[in-house]
Each structure stands twice: as C-alpha cells, then as structure tokens.
C-alpha cells in the first residue's frame, strides 16, 4: 500500500506578458491592427478627397482617347489611340533605352574596368579618372549636359555634320541609313539562325569529345567561320536582296533613313557613361578578387595565357561580378525614368506625366507605373538568384 504523498507544488503559469511566444503573438496582432488602421485612414481620406474633387476611381480611363501625339513610338500610335496604348508606347520606349543603355554600359564598363588594371600606367590612370569623374556627378546633370549643352547646340539640318554623306548629325537628331530587306532577304536571316544553332551544337559536341578523348578541335574558329560564311553564301546566292534607304535633305529636314531623337541620344549617352563608371569598378574588383595563385596554378598546368584567362580567371571573376552587375542594370532601368526631364517619351514621361495630367487619375497611374518597375526588378532579381544558384561553388 502506498502512502498518499502530498501533491507536487503546482507551478504557477507565468502571466502572458512574461511568455515570449504569447508576447510575440500579441505584438504582431497589435502591429497588424495598427497597419490596417493606417491603411484604413489613408483609404478613407483618399476617397473623401477624390469625392470632393469629383474624380472617379477605376481603370476605365484606359479606354478613353488620349488625344496627344508622342514623338517616338515603336508600335502604331496616333492621337486617336487610347490611354492604354500610351502606357504600352511608354513602356516600350523605356525598354528600348534600357536595352541600349545596358549594352553600351556593359561594353564601356568592361573595357574601362580591364583598362584600370592595365600595366600601362597612363591607360590605368585615364580609366581611373573616367571612373572618378563620372560616378561622382549626378546623372540628371549629365543628361542635361548632353542634351542642352551638346545636342541642342548642334547645327540645323541644312548644316548637318555628316559622315560619308550617309550618316547625319544635327539638332533634330542622328539620321542613319535604314536597311530595306528585299523579297528573298528572309532566307539570309534563316541561314544566320541555322549557323548560330550549328555553332552551339558544335561547341557542345567538342566539349564532350574533349572530355572523352582529350582531343579538341579549334571550335571557336570553326563556329565563327560557320556564322560568317553560311549567311554570306545564302545572301549572295539569293541575289543580295538588301538595299539601304539613305537619308536625303529635302526642304528643312531629312527624309528617309532612321532618325534617332536627340532626347534618346542624350539619355543613352548619359546612362551608358554613368553606369559604365560603376560597372568598371565592379569589373576591377571582380578580377582582383581572383587570387594570384589561381593564375600561377593554371600556368603550372601549362595552360596558355588565353586559356588561363578564359577557363580560370574569368569564370571565377564573373561569380563576383554578376550580382552587383545585375543591380547596376536594375539601377539603369530605374534611372531611365529621368527621361521625363528632357522629354524623351518613356513610361514616366508619357504615362505618369501627360496621361496623369490629362485624366487626373493620380492613384491608378502612379500605381501602374510603380508596378511596372517593381515587376522588372522582381524579374531581374529572380534571374539573378537563379544564376547565382547555378554559379555558386559546390561545396562539401
């Protein structure tokens, strides 16, 4: 028989504010409540204000006729088009200048970044001066400089500067010949596509063959040959169906050719030079991050100078370069919105500018504009994460 023992002293449960888990719950609930209160306050104020000003909310305005012209459009656009169409035109113009800018900034940045590491004292100093000057001056000022001080002070079309009587530069912009494909020209493009695919297949096959047998073909030269020769043969065989529409001066302006607006030129120049300075720094630090032992080890394995660079240094440097490079690309896309200051018809200029002023739909227009940039940012950072995961060192 067991003797009844006294029950163990009951542990008092601590009050809920001494329990971290409960406290966290309470804190988060309070925070959510505060957030909803702020949002509710803003929404009710906004509705009241919109009501007082007689503005109806909603996206119905996108179907109304815009009634204003846009100087540059990649798709068909007339003043009779809708506001929805202006949104598309602006978006495409933003993408156009961003793509051009990213391409040029990458080239400038890599050239200057490598030049900063040149053993040639003068070249390294010039590249260094470029970086230090252009990244420390506001981008907007650089855009103004190229637009107002350089391109707006060019001569009139009659006194254009010309290069070989085919390319003209004047206050209205840069006029270049436009390629006009004849009936059979599409076959040359097809041949080019086939050649590129063949080259990729060849390089892959060569890599597998090298892994299996140790032999390798000079695949770089062969694929370059395929890409040049195949389209050229097709081009000549189909009777050279390509003519150039050369701009002609008639009256006070040029007809024919493609006119690149001075606004686009100024924005492109400023964006590429400004972002190029940042990319140069990224490239320099990326290359310097590859330790010297890597190069020495590659040379000890008797890789040639070019192979050392291509197979050892650049792949490791790219791993350091790519993440900040992507964020520079994102910056460039976001900075292209400065177009509105010189009147290049980008998304912010035609949509958050003109459309907003004409319709008064501030909330919808600003939200749509921000959503575009957010989407672009998200897409680029998703790509970056995917790329990083692919490139990351496989560690044990």
């Amino acid at each position, binding site marked *: 028989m067991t003797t009844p023992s006294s029950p163990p002293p009951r542990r008092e449960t601590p009050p809920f504010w001494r329990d971290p888990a409960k406290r*966290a719950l309470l*804190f*988060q609930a309070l*925070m*959510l409540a505060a*957030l909803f209160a702020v949002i509710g306050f*803003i929404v009710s*104020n*906004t509705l*009241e*204000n*919109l009501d*007082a000003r007689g503005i109806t909310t909603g996206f119905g305005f996108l179907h109304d006729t815009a009634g204003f012209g846009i100087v540059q459009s990649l798709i068909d656009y007339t003043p009779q088009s809708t506001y929805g169409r202006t949104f598309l035109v602006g978006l495409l113009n933003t993408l156009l200048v961003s793509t051009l800018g990213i391409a040029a900034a990458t080239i400038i940045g890599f050239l200057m970044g490598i030049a900063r590491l040149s*053993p*040639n*004292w*003068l*070249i390294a100093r*010039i590249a260094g001066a470029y970086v*230090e*000057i252009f990244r*420390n*001056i*506001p*981008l*907007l*000022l650089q855009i*103004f*400089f190229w637009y*107002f*001080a350089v391109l707006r*002070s060019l001569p009139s079309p009659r006194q254009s500067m010309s290069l070989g009587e085919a390319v003209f530069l004047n206050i209205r912009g840069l006029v270049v010949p436009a390629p006009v494909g004849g009936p059979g020209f599409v076959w040359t493009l097809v041949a080019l596509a086939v050649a590129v695919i063949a080259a990729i297949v060849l390089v892959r096959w060569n890599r597998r063959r090298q892994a299996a047998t140790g032999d390798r073909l000079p695949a770089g030269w062969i694929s370059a040959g395929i890409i040049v020769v195949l389209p050229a043969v097709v081009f000549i065989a189909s009777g050279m169906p390509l003519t150039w529409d050369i701009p002609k001066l008639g009256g006070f302006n040029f007809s024919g050719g493609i006119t690149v607006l001075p606004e686009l030129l100024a924005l492109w120049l400023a964006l590429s030079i400004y972002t190029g300075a940042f990319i140069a720094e990224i490239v320099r630090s990326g290359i310097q991050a590859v330790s010297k032992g890597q190069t020495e080890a590659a040379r000890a394995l008797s890789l040639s100078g070019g192979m050392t660079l291509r197979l050892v240094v650049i792949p490791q440097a790219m791993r350091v370069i790519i993440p900040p490079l992507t964020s520079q690309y994102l910056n460039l896309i*976001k*900075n292209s*919105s*400065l177009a*509105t*200051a010189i009147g290049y018809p980008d998304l*912010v200029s035609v949509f*958050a500018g003109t459309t*907003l002023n004409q319709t008064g739909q*501030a*909330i919808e227009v*600003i939200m749509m*504009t*921000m959503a575009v*940039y*957010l989407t672009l*940012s*998200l897409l680029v950072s998703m790509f970056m994460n995917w790329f990083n995961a692919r490139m990351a060192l496989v560690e044990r």
Partner: protein
Amino acid sequence: MSKLTLNTTPVDARPAPKRSIGAIAWLRANLFQGPINSVLSLLAIWALIAGLTPLIQWAIIDADWIGTSREACSSGGACWVFISARFEQFIYGFYPSELRWRVDLTFVLFAVMIAWLALPRLPAKKLAAVLTLAVFPIVAFYLLHGGLFGMPTVPTHRWGGLMLTLVLAVVGIVAALPIGIVLALGRQSKMPIVKSISVVFIEFWRGVPLITVLFMASVMLPLFVPTEVDMDKLVRALIGITLFQSAYMAEVVRGGLQAIPKGQEEAAAALGMGYWKRMGLIVLPQALKMMIPGIVNTFIALFKDTSLVLIIGLFDLLAIVQAALADADWLGYSIEGYVFVAFVFWIFCFGMSRYSQYLERKLHTGH
C-alpha cells in the same frame, strides 16, 4: 708562399644599373613595356594633348573672370562671370539677403559637427553623434525657417540652391537612419508578420525609381491626408525621399548586423539581457561602426539624387542653375553653368567617397 688576406670591411654598394633607375627606366617599365603598350601609350598621350589643350584654353586661358554682365565676356573662352554674378543665388536660392547669415551659421555648425564626427583624433564621438542626430536638426530648422526668438520666418518656397540640396540630403539621411534600423531589425525578426511587413516595405521602395516616388509624394500624398491638412511642397518631397532612403538604409544596417558574430548576441542572452538590451547595448553599437562606410555611400547616392527634385518644381542647385540658363541676359552659357554644378557636386561626392574608402581600410583590421 702566397699570403691569404681576409677583408672584413664591406665593399661599398655599387649604384644600380642605369637601366633600372630614373625616369627612363620608369618609362620603360610603365609605358613602353612592349610594342602594343608603346602604341597605346603614344595614342593616349596624343588623345590627352588633343583633348586637354582646347579645354584648358577655353576654361582658363581664354576665360573671363571679372565683371558683372555678359559684356565682360569678350575673350571667346569660358564666361565665369555668369557664375560669379549669380553665385549668391546658386548658394542661397531666393533666401532674403539680409537673413543669409542664418544659412551661413547653419553651414558652419554643420561643418563643425561633421568635422567632430569624422576626424578620428577628436574625443567624445558619442556626444557628437547625439548632438548631430538629435539636437542639430532642431537648431538648423529654427535657424533656416525662423519663427523663434523673433527671427522672421522664411517660407520654404524661398529656399533654394546648394542650401536646399544640402537640406534635402541631410534631412533625408538623418530621418532615414532610425527608420532603417527598425526595418533592418524587423527583417531579421523571428516574428513572421513583422518580418514580412519589413521585407515588403524594403523591397517596394528599392524596386521603384526615385522619380515615381517624388511624383507620388507630390500628387498622391495630398490625397492621403485629411483635406484640411495643407502640406508644404518641400515637406512632401522630404517625406518621399525619407521613405525611399529608409529602405536603402535598412539594407546597410542589415549588412552591419550580419557582420557581428552571432556569439555576441548569444552571450548577451546568456547574461539574461532582453531583446532591446541585447540590441541596444551589444549588437547595434558594434554594428553601427561597421555601417559608417555604407552610410556614407548611401549619402553620396542620395546627394546626387536630390537633383531630381527639379522635376517636381523645387529649386535645388541644378534646378536654379538650369533656370538661370534660361535668363535672356545670359543665354548661351549652359556649359559654364553645368561645369560649375558638376564641380560642386564632384567635390562633395569625391571627398565623401575618399573618406568612406579610408574608413573601410581602417575598419578592415584583418582576420
């Protein structure tokens, strides 16, 4: 029998071969290592001479410096008279000239505080930081805006020029720092709601361009507040800039927090410290030191970005020069104007970036 002698006095060092010292050797080692480098060097020298000669001719030799009107500019070079004639406006905007001593005093106070913070030899950094972040903004506000001790009020639409640029940048950074710290702590929090609110807030502001933020501040913010609240244009821009900047600041703070070993916080927890004590006494003081270069870099970016306020109609340094260029008396001197603005911005940004590099070297004490 021959005698062996042992010479114990060292022979004098012979001079290095002529080929490896002096200017010629330096040139051989740095400019003319091989045929390609020689060609590159010659090209670079030619480009420098071809480019810099007309520039120096224009900017210095042929330039006009003295005078008050455009008639003084007759030499064909740069017309710096334009800058000197408008200099006060470029610095103070439309601030009443008899009250400009207040702006000057603010500038001097600011310079003293920054020197106190930045020069490593001066003592009592904590006091300086508290004064700069908490006391100086209030003093500066009453000095610039007036309305206290019988100082006449200067409405913000008369502010402009370099003064406005500095106000925007300094207020933006000082106001964004505490918000950024809270957001960064929130992002590291284990509470899911706190964490997701912080992440969404940070990524939203980092994903949109500053221009759209300024547009939003100028057209949407008035809709968000009750009708009777009338917000000043400058205040609206400052709210937009602060929100935008706080997201970037949060990322800087996060970088600083991540640089502190986890053991620090665990040790503090083992001593029985609560969350706010662990953060406030152990982690943040160490992290803040690591963050200074990042803060300086964000400040440089913001300082350059303040020029965007021109789009919503505020007259910062660039905007006021841009407006002066349209003045009929001074048409055609846009290059001089832009060069002046570029020079001012460049001095500030280059100086700050050098300081931040110096700090990074100093903080990077090795592992």
